[in-house]
């Protein structure tokens, strides 16, 4: 039965770590803007061919 106490300690402390991570991410402004980063990650790194002929179809 002692093992249960140990398991509980582990599970609660892992959960507490996640809570702490959540708190930290919130403090650091991770949730300030929930839209722009989702778009930003889809942008292509600048292509050298940009200036010739931007294709009509593109991303959209």
């Amino acid at each position, binding site marked *: *039965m002692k093992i*249960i*106490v140990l398991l*509980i300690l582990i599970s*609660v402390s892992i*959960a*507490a770590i996640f*809570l702490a991570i*959540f*708190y930290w991410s*919130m*403090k650091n402004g991770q*949730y*300030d*803007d*929930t*839209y*722009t980063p989702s*778009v*930003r990650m889809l*942008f*292509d790194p*600048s*292509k050298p061919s*940009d*200036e010739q002929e*931007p*294709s009509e179809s*593109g*991303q*959209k």
Partner: protein
Amino acid sequence: MQVQSEVDVEVQCYHCGQPCQDLVWKDDKPFCCAGCQAVFEILSANNLCAYYDYEQNPGVQVTRPVDESVYAYLNQPSICQKLVTFSSENFSRVEFYVPAIHCISCIWLLENLKRLNSGMLRSEVNFPRKRVIVDFDPRNITLARVASLMASVGYAPVITLDDRQDKTKDTRSFSADKKLITKLAIAGFCFGNVMLFSFPEYLGLEGEESLRGVFSWLNVLLSIPVLLYSSTDYLRSAWQSFKQRQINIDVPIAVGLIALFGRSFWEIASGFGPGYFDSFTGLVFFLLIGRWFQSKTYQSLAFDRDFKSYFPLAVQKREGDSWNPVIIYELAKGDEVKIRNMEIVPADSTLLTGEGFMDYSFVTGESRPVRVVGGSHVYAGGRLIGQPVTLRVEKETSQSHLTSLWNNAIFKKPNESRYKKILDMAAQRFTWIVLGISVITAAYWYVADPSQVWLIVTAVLMVACPCALALTAPFTYGNMLRQFGRHGLYLKNADVIERMAKIDSLVFDKTGTITHGRRPQISFVGDLSGDEMAAIKQVCGFSTHPYSTRIHEALKQQRIVDVNDFKETPSKGIAATVNGDEYLIGSAEFAGAVSYQDVATAKVYVSVNGELRGYFQIKTAVRENLKPMINRWKGFIALLSGDNAADSGRMSNLFEAKAKLLFNQNPHDKLDYVANLQQSGHTVMMLGDGLNDSGALKQADVGIAVTDDTGVFTPSCDGIMQGEKLGYLDRYLALAKSATTIVKSAFILSFLYNAVAISVAVSGHLTPLIAAVLMPLSSISVVVFTTLSVNFVAIRTLKK
């Protein structure tokens, strides 16, 4: 021929997507005007054409060429210092509000500004708030250059007097929001784990006593942060209202929470039982979810703006022989300032040199620009149309005719405290009933079995905690808020809906609310060829008379023509020779027509080579669907216009006999009118759009700002409504009324739960298991009931 005209219609500007009537071609791409073409050239020269890949026609029409000197004041060290959030020798950071941000391409371009100029280090867009943070190297690029660079590609930053304080204001509201989420997260974490440790209890498992003790004490440990941190809002609010000898909804909640915690702690400490910590933490968790659900905010909208966000930050002031920019707060009586075309007069002043037109439409509601000459008195907030003028300041900005409105007492006290919430009224009754039941129960058990009194009274207080009751209003109004938002009415908070339900009087402003004030309809009556239209457009472009600018903007034909002998006769008209033809554009007498009086529409006559060809009609159009809405509305209705009575015929036609129409109302008159109406027992909704309505909007029980573009300035209000939705106003009000009905039915539902729980508690049968089942069951069923009924009613009312 037909094919030709179809093609004409379908060609869209490659940059802004506006239909082009006369094309400018560049690199095989069509452009509607030289401005759009210029932006394209900048982008293609800097290898930024991917802008056009992410969205089709993403651009913003650039109507006026960017004048770098407009931003010159940003280079003044004292001003620069107030705007930048961080500054060192080789690094500065500034945050701009850019209302033009609207699509993915905007984000891409603004985040690649560094490719336009090597002095730009990095830029980051916050799309929901329409803000851009720009890092730049002050050794290579000035702040003014940063701003004009952004303006040159169509993203002009808007810098107002308010920007200085903005930083602190925003962080404060953000931290309140973040605090709530942190509290919610902690309550959720503790609730989940407490439930886990209560599992053996739920299943009735027999186990080692020592293990039970460990679980119980872990529950105590997990509940302490919930009591001391997550539930503090409720405890504090209850204490405050208790001190003021009032009962709001938080009082019974706080009593219930303390009873739950105290009883559970006593049970565990004395070894009596497992306690009710799962109910306790769950209660706080659900309550906080309700609070969070209700706190939906529209980040890109601002509901608390005053004149500060309308006025510019700085103005050119004469110092000796030179003109230097100063912050308008520092203006004093007697200072000389210079105002250019489309700039705003910062303080009441006298015009010294130059002449032009003042557009007061936003300040007084007067739709027609006023002509000003040397010696004229000009009021703060007017927008200059015409050549630069110099002014002598007569009053400081904060003491001006317009801004003195904000000295009215109505702006000093917080709006919300004037209203008693339906929820708090229910809570009052509820608290007395619960108190009565507890006393009767205590008396009964004192006789029957004195040892049980304390246990049963705490049980009653625990289950009487009106969690479901407290959740009804947040979920009903929170859902309603989202429904309204989907249909173009953005409310400041959920409490507004409750006040909307009681509205029996509507008060409208005219210019910009009833009419499209700043977007007049222009039609030509007569006969002109395309070439002649193009010539008129060009000629009107040289004039600064407001009618000329409007005609110039309305005509699409664009051809390069030679304009000779341009001559403008003030208050008469303009004469010019184009390609050998003589044009006269102006008043009836000027163009040689017979004049007849018609004040509702302005007419501009055109004659070519002495032959009268017709006239332009300039008319501010009434919004659509208004008349049926006014007919449907059964309550009191009034119109307060700052404009002259010229429009009264059209307005009385629109409003019919039952409405009260008042003209020539100044901002103070409007405020007083609304206040008088309230004093005679009416509950008033004010609908306005301009600074002149600010007082009335604030005074009214509900003040709604009507706007066609949520990006532009709106005065302080309870809600912002899209102009085209004004015809549905009565439906919105009906919907708000049904919200109140839903809240009341949900009250009954939650009272039923409480009645069941209390009867269990009174008879002495409450166990932790029953509490743990009843509590979430009542909360969840109330949430489901309100959500479903709000959506059902909203679909039925708004989809008609």
